[in-house]
């Protein structure tokens, strides 16, 4: 059970947090095999995906014109880093979600 504060903050006062970041992912047949993580404004670090630890699908707001359909992948990279990626079916793009 989640406790709600019943307070409605003004939308203008809110700043988004944990926004997904676009990410270049090599995924032949929809399965991530390598990711290119932004390092600086111009450079990226490419890493191979050694294993997919978890996979789940989120379908939200199916009653709207543009429903949200995402397939999440929790992947382990060859550098030992763990990342949560998702494929957005509406925009057919890959994103990185830092805190899933």
């Amino acid at each position, binding site marked *: 059970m989640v406790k709600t504060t019943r307070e409605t*903050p003004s939308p203008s*006062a809110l700043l*988004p*947090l*944990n926004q997904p970041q676009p990410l270049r992912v090599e995924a032949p047949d929809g399965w991530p095999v390598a990711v290119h993580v932004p390092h600086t404004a111009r450079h990226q670090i490419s890493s191979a995906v050694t294993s997919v630890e978890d996979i789940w699908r989120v379908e939200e707001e199916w009653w709207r014109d543009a429903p949200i359909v995402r397939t999440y992948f929790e992947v382990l990279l060859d550098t030992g880093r763990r990342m949560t990626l998702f494929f957005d079916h509406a925009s057919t793009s890959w994103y990185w979600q830092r805190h899933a």
Partner: protein
Amino acid sequence: MQFACLLIDQLPVKSEVQRTPALAGRPVIIAHGAGSRRVVLDASPHALGVQPGMPLSEALSQCKGALLVEPDPAHYRDVFDHALDAIEALGADVEEEDLGHATVQLTGLELLHGGEQQLIDDLIAAIPRFLAPRIGVGSSKFVASVAAHQAKPGRAYRAPSDLQPFLDSLPVELLPVPWQTIAKLHGFGLRSLGQLARMPIGALQAQFGREGKLLGELARGIDRRPLTPRRHQETVTASLAFADPVGTIGIVLTAVESLLALVFAQDSMRGRFARVCTLDGLVFRAPAWHRRMVFKESLGDRTKAFSVVRHALENTPPPGPLEELRLTLSSITGEGGRQESLFRDVRREENLKEALRQLRARLGGQPPIYHVREVEPWSRLPERRQALVPFSP
């Protein structure tokens, strides 16, 4: 209720001419901004074809022999403040609308001054002659302001008792609303107050919201806005002029130290503490420099104040050689410290509030400090679970 509006045109140019009499009778342009974006702040009547807001390059091509003067906003503010102080000394409540524009409440003061006409004469006499103010007298703030626009410099004009014919032919630009609203009125073909007065207030409200009602009422000569007297802020000032422009930070710091010694030695600062220190400098061939420093806590000691000012100036020195330097202490209080709470949590909260208040004062707005707040913690979309909310303890 009777009001008087004080209107001083070309306040910057008049202030500069009064300070430097050699500028009198010559085309003078005061420009502000930086680089290629410099625009005319004010121009003397001798600078023909030059209007405030015009790009400087265009103004200089219009008036080739013009003398270019760097702006000194602190000086213009001082000149205007002194004029308002002189009016307040007559016993009047004064509301400042803008630099060079103020409203004075006359009702209740006529008996003190031997009638309304004598009061208006006293008002004109109280203001330095070189400012040549235009005074408008009317039954409300807006009517007085419109009347002031009809007055000649150094003279008063009283709005007639039958207001509507007087207001009808006047342009909507006289309304105290943003220029976007004026542009919108023009877009509807409404150029005079008479045209506006003939519009039903409901229609104006439908188009302009709450402002629409104000527009409709003002055009009919109805102004219910009360006069809000300006808040008097006690300040202590000392200044010095350098024989030659000074660009070395060491000399500037020595000057600041001696100015601090002067202000803290004044009788009005005895046993008292200041919270804000402002430095205004006239920079050689560059726009005036202004620096405001808020002390972490009220200081009544020049040594402590100097260490704060020195630290600030060493980090960001003046932009060029200084010709004059003025130091002002404000937010003066009799309190030297604060009584802290006995309880740790309350103390922590108070410290946070204080830090935030100082940041707000320093940044001139809401500081970029946020706290994480749960918005839709149940959402399956991670980015919707939390958001950043401006921190306000």
